[in-house]
């Protein structure tokens, strides 16, 4: 029996010594190796139906535990196909004020419902691609501005922007709503004007904030109906002089762009918050990362 007990303890001791003989014996922290990362192409290409110049950006991914690398891929081939036919090859324009961009003339190539494919290749990287259909333009039916009509959480009153349009029935649609203001001031000699975003916000939980495209929404809850979107702004939306104006944009965006912007917004909100759930940014580049998106814009200047 004593031999059994002795064996029992010896086994446990040997097992302990064998297992804890590597590295710092008392450390409870173990640095881990990430799986080796093979860089892939990162593409940002968002084209509108009215773009006169198509602009795309090509970078590559890098491992998180490596030194950050924000240089673009300078020797990429960027091709745009329409219904299987090559329509444009975007070339690196190092002299453009839009730095590190691949560009091509955009006029006359987009038609509503047309199928487009973007292919990007570069030496040392796998070829990547994405496909999109050009959404058709959805026109703004009516815009109303109600000054100081919405109470804010702090008790102040905000201007309300009400935008109405008819959602095409029987299809998944996604929209971005944005507004821009032109403000003017007189310096005693001349009048100077400048444009800026109206920085829209909304109390409607279906209208979500996006990093660069105003508010975004899916037609899941109103398919085929007259839609009334209500947004607010901390700016005064009413012009205070005849030179000032308010322009509203309704952008019919693709599903891929909607989810990309939504997840990117969530990602940015969660960044640095230890209590937030992890976010995966959802792109549509097959074999790579990023976004290729097409959109149709309707613009309306509000008359007061």
């Amino acid at each position: 029996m004593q031999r059994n007990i002795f064996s029992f303890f010896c086994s446990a001791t040997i097992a302990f010594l064998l297992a804890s003989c590597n590295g710092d014996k008392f450390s409870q922290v173990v640095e881990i190796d990430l799986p080796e990362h093979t860089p892939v192409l990162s593409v940002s290409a968002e084209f509108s139906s009215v773009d006169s110049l198509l602009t795309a950006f090509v970078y590559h991914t890098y491992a998180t535990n490596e030194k950050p690398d924000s240089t673009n891929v300078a020797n990429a081939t960027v091709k745009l196909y329409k219904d299987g036919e090559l329509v444009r090859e975007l070339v690196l324009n190092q002299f453009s004020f839009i730095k590190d961009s691949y560009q091509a003339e955009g006029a006359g190539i987009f038609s509503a419902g047309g199928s487009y494919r973007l292919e990007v290749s570069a030496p040392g990287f796998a070829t990547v691609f994405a496909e999109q259909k050009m959404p058709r333009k959805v026109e703004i039916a009516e815009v109303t501005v109600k000054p100081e009509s919405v109470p804010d959480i702090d008790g102040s009153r905000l201007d309300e922007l009400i935008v109405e349009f008819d959602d095409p029935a029987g299809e998944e649609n996604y929209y971005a709503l944005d507004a821009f203001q032109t403000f003017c001031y007189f310096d005693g000699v001349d009048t100077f004007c400048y444009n800026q975003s109206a920085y829209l916000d909304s109390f409607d939980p279906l209208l979500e904030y996006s990093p660069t495209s105003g508010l975004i929404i899916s037609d899941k809850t109103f398919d085929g109906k007259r839609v009334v979107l209500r947004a607010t702004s901390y700016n005064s939306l009413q012009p205070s002089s005849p030179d000032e104006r308010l322009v509203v944009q309704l952008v019919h965006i693709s599903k891929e762009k909607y989810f990309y912007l939504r997840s990117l917004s969530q990602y940015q909100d969660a960044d640095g918050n230890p209590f937030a759930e992890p976010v995966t940014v959802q792109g549509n580049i097959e074999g790579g990362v990023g976004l290729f998106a097409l959109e149709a814009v309707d613009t309306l200047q509000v008359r007061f």
Partner: protein
Amino acid sequence: MSHVFRTATLLIFSMLSLSVFAQKYTISGYIEDSDTGEKLIAANAFDLRTASGAVSNTYGFYSLTLPKDSVHLEISYIGYETQRLDLYLDKNTTLNIKLGSSIELAVVEVSASRQARIEEEVQMSRVDIPIEQIKKIPALLGEVDVLKVLQLLPGVQSGGEGQSGLYVRGGSPDQNLVLLDGVPVYNVSHVLGIFSVFNADAIKNVTLTKGGFPARYGGRLSSVLEINMKEGNMNEVHGEGSVGLISSKLTLEGPIWKDKTSFIVSGRRTYVDLLMAPFIKAANAAEDGGDFKVKLFFYDLNAKINHKFNDKHRLYLSAYSGSDVFGTEFKDDGDSFEGGLDWGNLISAARWNWQINPKTFANTTLTYTNYQIDIGTGFSSKRPNEPTERFSAKYISGIEDIGLKFDLDHIPSPKHYLRFGGAATHHTYKPGALALKSTAEDFNLDTLIGSQNANSLEFAMYAEDDISLGALKANVGVHLSGFAVDDKFYPSVQPRLGLRYLLPKNVALKASFATMTQFINLLTSEALSLPTDLWVPSTERVKPQQSWQVALGAAKTVREEYEFSIEAYYKSLKNVVSFREGASFLLGLENDWQDKVTQGRGETYGAEFFIQKKKGRTTGWIGYTLSWNWRQFDDINGGKRYPFRYDRRHDISVVVSHDFSKKISGSLAWVYGTGNAVTLEVFQFNNVLRSNGESGQPEYYYGNTVGTSGDKNSFRMSDYHRLDASIEFKKKKKWGQAAWVLGVYNAYWNRNPYFILADEDYSYDPVTGVETSTTKFKEISILPIIPSIAYNFKF
């Protein structure tokens, strides 16, 4: 039509004839421990002449209907001397049986069926563990833990290092219905999940059902864990307890009125804070600073009273109260800061057993349960000639239930065991609110931010029958439930079926099908391992969770010593709830919790192998689970299916207990599991975002760096494995029995990962003057090798 009528008439006539001509009588009563009066659950009463038997229910009641004739009754229960009784049955007979424990029996058993062989039972996917066996298995810091023992069984996984949460067949912990004396327990853990709330000294038995749910169970998708407290010794006062490294416990039980009323009281408290107090005081004195205090403890208190009015009526009153207190307080020069985190359960039940007639037994239970979390921080400043300033913030969350349940067992013959019942529960939810208070000269505040209380009513009814048809046995039933919340009512019909067919050589084939519906949800943060989870109801927007599970298996006992079982299962989950990507449980309290969650689907499947040695000086088991566990939400991971955090391809457990002698016994437990699936930003990319200017022509925004894992939960933490060992030295004393238990947790000190930390590593290039940072990932392990010693006593 007339043919149907004739057949029905003939059938009814035949049944009546049988009852008239084959006179039958019923033997019924309770089976209990002769020393303590504790009722024995699932003890066997078997007539050797007719080969008919009955099993005692949760309250020790049995009923066996036999033809008028002589009866050779054998009553058996593992760990007890088998009793044989011969009688002539010519009238309904009440027979209360007292079994004496078998002193010579050196080992206790862990089995899927303690009395009946595994192949005799219809029920599959169920494990029943005697508390004596639980106490033998090595425990962290010597704290015997029911839930950690369950984690050693196939199909049951732990969430992570030291965690008490159960992940049963791919389900999450909120999908387990945990019942303490029939009352739901909403939080089962102490110390951030490291210990469970169940004090083993106060527990009589533990049963876990992983699938093939009979109709009497409902309300959760993945498992039912029934824990019954001891009832208290009816004959004499006894006690047991232990003194350990971090806690001590004491249990007292005995008669209040001999053979009529008994009590049991059991308490446990940790004392890390008391041990630390002198050191903290000394540190305060040395630094000549303020007064710093730490509160760090948990406690449990169980109590039960059992009163027997007569052979037909009994009343049980039971209660549990337990809480964790973590807090710090700092006082200096009139300023006082404090902060802390408290959470705990209060549970009580009143149960009335009524033996209506020899074949019918009723139980009515009134239940109350309350679980609350408080996270608070406060500041006060009091100086001479100045007004006192106070500020406090408190985050409150919890759930409170009041319920009434009625269960009826009717045993018309050995071939049928009918169960009917119903229940109604009123839930009150406090799904996260922040209370802010401030009293200052220029700023007064008293407000509550966040979700308001919500209420709901949950109803359930069930009917089931255990049918015995020779080699084929079946359990057939239906569970009906409904949930009323606001103006919405969700009904649910859940059919259940269990089958067993006995092949030659006593190999049992088993199959089961069960659908389940769950009306309440636990919102759990993947980002945080704190008890900050919120219990919330199904609502108009958040639909009830549903599942269906099918299981197939085979079981056999070999040489009365070894049990083999293999089961394959497939479970489909619908409307499972998860936080949205980027949602934070704590920040944004002004939002409705419903805005933070999304619902989706789950799919889990696998196979479980279980080999168990039940008798002899060496006992134990080997369990292996091969499983897959998926989730799919439209709003998460771009709608793509991804592995659940606790997707564990391989899970192995080996448990061995050996009695070296009557005085010395030892135990080893080794576990291995595939690492958890987590989301880790393993690579980054730059992107440029477009905005349409006023004219519709683009403007570009540079400098957006996005970190990504590719897909959600695509990275695996290191595999988990650990060896625990313990040895017990027992000694008889004049006053009872004493034992020293030496144990070691994580004997070979494997650094099992608890979480992964991303750490920035900065480097500066003096030539270019550029500082760059790279990210390194580190697995943090919290539990190293931990030895323990405990002194146990019984009197």
